[in-house]
C-alpha cells in the first residue's frame, strides 16, 4: 500500500502515526475538556437534574457571594509566599555547602533527597503524628529547649506554618537540582575573580548566583505550580480546619465538585486557579530579563 509513496512521504506518515497517541490524548483529554469546562462554567449542574444555564452567575458567586472562594485562594497564596522563598534560600545554601570539596557528599545528598521522593498519604499521616501536640516529635524536640510547642494543626495561627515546615522536609529535592547547577559552573570563572582578590561574598554575588539564576528561575516556576495545587496533605491532615484556616484552594475545589456536586461552579474554580498560575508564571517571566542570566544570550550580542 505504501509502495507508491516517496521516502519523505512515508516518513511524514510515520511521524503522524507515532505522534498520534499524544495528539489524540491532547484532543480528548486536554483541549476538549478545557473547552467543555468553559461551557460548563456557565451552568448549574449536579450530574443528576438537568443542567441549568446561569450565565455569569457562577463567576459572580466566586467574586461576590461566596466568602470561601477568595478565602481559600488567599490561604493558598499566603502558603506559597512562605514556602517558595524558604525552599529557594535553603536549597541554594545547602547546595553551596555541599558543593565544597567534602567527603561523604553522595551520602549526604542521598539523605537529603530521600524525603523528596516520598509523598502522598503515608507522608501526610507521618506529619500528622509529628505535629501531635502532646505525643508528637516536634513538641518533644521543642521541650528539649524548654519551649512548650503549640497545638500545630489545631491552631489557626500555626496551621499554615505547619504545612510549610512539613514541605521543608523535602528541601533536598531543590537542593539536588541546585547542586547540579553549581557543578556546571566552569571553574575558570572563579579562578579569574580570585586573581582580582574578590571576597567570598562577591564571588557568590557576581558569579555563583548569576550562573545559577536560570535554574533558580525554573525552580520558582515549578514551585508556584506545585504549591498552588496542594491537596493531599490538607485533605489528610486537617481537612481544611480549624475554622477553614487551612482550606487550600484544591481542597475547596474538590469539595465543590465531588462532595457538593456543583460541577459548574467547580469548573469556575478550576479556571480561576489556572489563570492565577498562568498570571504568576507570566509575572515571573516578565521579571526574568532583569535577573536571569543566560550565557548564550550575552555571547550572541
Amino acid at each position, binding site marked *: 500500500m505504501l509502495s507508491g509513496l516517496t521516502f519523505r512521504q512515508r516518513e511524514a506518515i510515520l511521524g503522524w502515526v*507515532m*505522534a498520534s497517541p499524544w495528539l489524540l490524548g491532547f484532543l480528548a483529554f486536554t483541549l476538549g*475538556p478545557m473547552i467543555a469546562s468553559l461551557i460548563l462554567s456557565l451552568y448549574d449542574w449536579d450530574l443528576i437534574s438537568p443542567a441549568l444555564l446561569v450565565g455569569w452567575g457562577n463567576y459572580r458567586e466566586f467574586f461576590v457571594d461566596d466568602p470561601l472562594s477568595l478565602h481559600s485562594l488567599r490561604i493558598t497564596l499566603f502558603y506559597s509566599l512562605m514556602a517558595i522563598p524558604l525552599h529557594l534560600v535553603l536549597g541554594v545554601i545547602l547546595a553551596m555547602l555541599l558543593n565544597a570539596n567534602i567527603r561523604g557528599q553522595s551520602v549526604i545528598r542521598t539523605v537529603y533527597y530521600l524525603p523528596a*521522593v516520598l509523598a502522598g498519604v503515608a507522608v501526610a*499521616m507521618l506529619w500528622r503524628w509529628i505535629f501531635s501536640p502532646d*505525643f508528637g516529635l516536634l513538641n518533644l524536640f521543642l521541650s528539649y529547649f524548654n519551649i512548650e510547642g503549640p497545638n500545630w494543626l489545631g491552631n489557626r495561627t500555626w496551621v499554615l506554618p505547619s504545612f510549610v515546615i512539613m514541605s521543608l*522536609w523535602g528541601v533536598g529535592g531543590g537542593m539536588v537540582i541546585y547542586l*547540579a547547577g553549581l557543578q556546571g559552573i566552569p571553574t575558570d570563572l572563579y579562578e579569574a575573580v580570585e586573581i582580582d582578590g574578590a571576597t567570598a561574598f562577591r564571588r557568590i554575588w557576581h558569579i555563583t548566583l548569576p550562573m545559577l539564576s536560570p535554574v533558580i528561575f*525554573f525552580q520558582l516556576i515549578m514551585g508556584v505550580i506545585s504549591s498552588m495545587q496542594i491537596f493531599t496533605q490538607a485533605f489528610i491532615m486537617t481537612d481544611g480546619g480549624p475554622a477553614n484556616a487551612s482550606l487550600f484552594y484544591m481542597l475547596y475545589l474538590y469539595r465543590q465538585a465531588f462532595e457538593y456536586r456543583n460541577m459548574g461552579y467547580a469548573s469556575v474554580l478550576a479556571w480561576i486557579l489556572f489563570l492565577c498560575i498562568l498570571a504568576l508564571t507570566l509575572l515571573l517571566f516578565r521579571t526574568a530579563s532583569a535577573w536571569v542570566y543566560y550565557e548564550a544570550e550575552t555571547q550572541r550580542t
Partner: protein
Amino acid sequence: MNTADSMAVAPPSSTSLGKRRTQLIHRIVAYGVLGTGSVFILAPLVWMLSTSLKTRSQVFRFPPEWIPEQFLWQNYVEALTLLPFEIFLLNTVIITGLSVAGELISSAVVAYAFARLRWAARNTLFIVVLATMMLPRQVTLIPTFILFTRVFGWKDTFYPLIVPSFFAVPFFVFLLRQFYMTLPFELDDAATIDGCSKFGVFLRILLPLSKPALAAVAIFSFQFHWNDFFYPLIYLFDKDKFTLALGLRFFQGNYGTDWHYLMAASLVVMLPVILVFFFAQRIFIQGIVYQGFK
C-alpha cells in the same frame, strides 16, 4: 619584616594559604550545617519506625520516648491484617504497573516522532507539548471526570486511572525527545543504509541507547502512580477497588487512630519507593537534573 616585603616575596604561598584557610572554614561550616540538617531529615523516619514498634500505651505516654520498650514487630502483622492489605496491594500494583508501562511506551514512541521524523506540523505541535507541560490538570479535571464516569461508564473501575497513561505524558515526551537529540544522527544513517526502516531505527537503535532516560521516566512514573491519592479518591468507591493510599485512611476513622498501626502500615506503603530510590538513586538524580535544565 614589613608587609610590603613579604607580599613582594611570596604572593603565591600567601594566597594559597588564605585559600586553604577559607576552604577549611567552609568545610567546617558545611559539615556542621549539613550534619545538623541530616538529623532533622532522618528524625521523622526514625520516629516513624520507633512508633510502629511501640505498644499502644507507650505511644500515648507523656513525655514521648524514643526507644520502644520492646520491639513489637507483631504490630506490622496486625496492622496489615486490620485491612484487606493484599487486595489494596494488588490493586495498587495493577494500576501502577499498567500506568508505568503505558506512559513509558507511548511517551517513547511520541518522542521519536518529535526528535527524528520530518512531518508537517511537528514544530508547532511540539510547542503545544511544551505548553501542556505547564498546564495544571485541574482545568481538565471535571469534564474528564464526567466523560469517564457518565459517558464511558467507568465509575469504580481502574480504567480512568490507567487508560490516559497510554496517551503519552508531555513532560516525559519532552525529556525523552531531549535525550534522543543527544544521540548522533549518524547512527540512524548507518542503520538506514543497512536497510533498516525508520521505525526499525527507533526500535533497534534509539530505544536500546536510551535506557538511562527510559529508566528515569519509569521511576518518575512509578513514584507518581504509587503515591497518587487524588485520582483514586475521585474514581474508586468500593473498598475492594481501593489502592494502598486510599486504604491507609481506614486507620484514621474506624480505629480512633492507632498510631502504632498507622505508622507501621505507612512505612510499608513507603517501602517500595524507598527501595527503588536506593537502588536507582543515580538514575533518579540524573532524571531530576534533566527536569531542572530544560
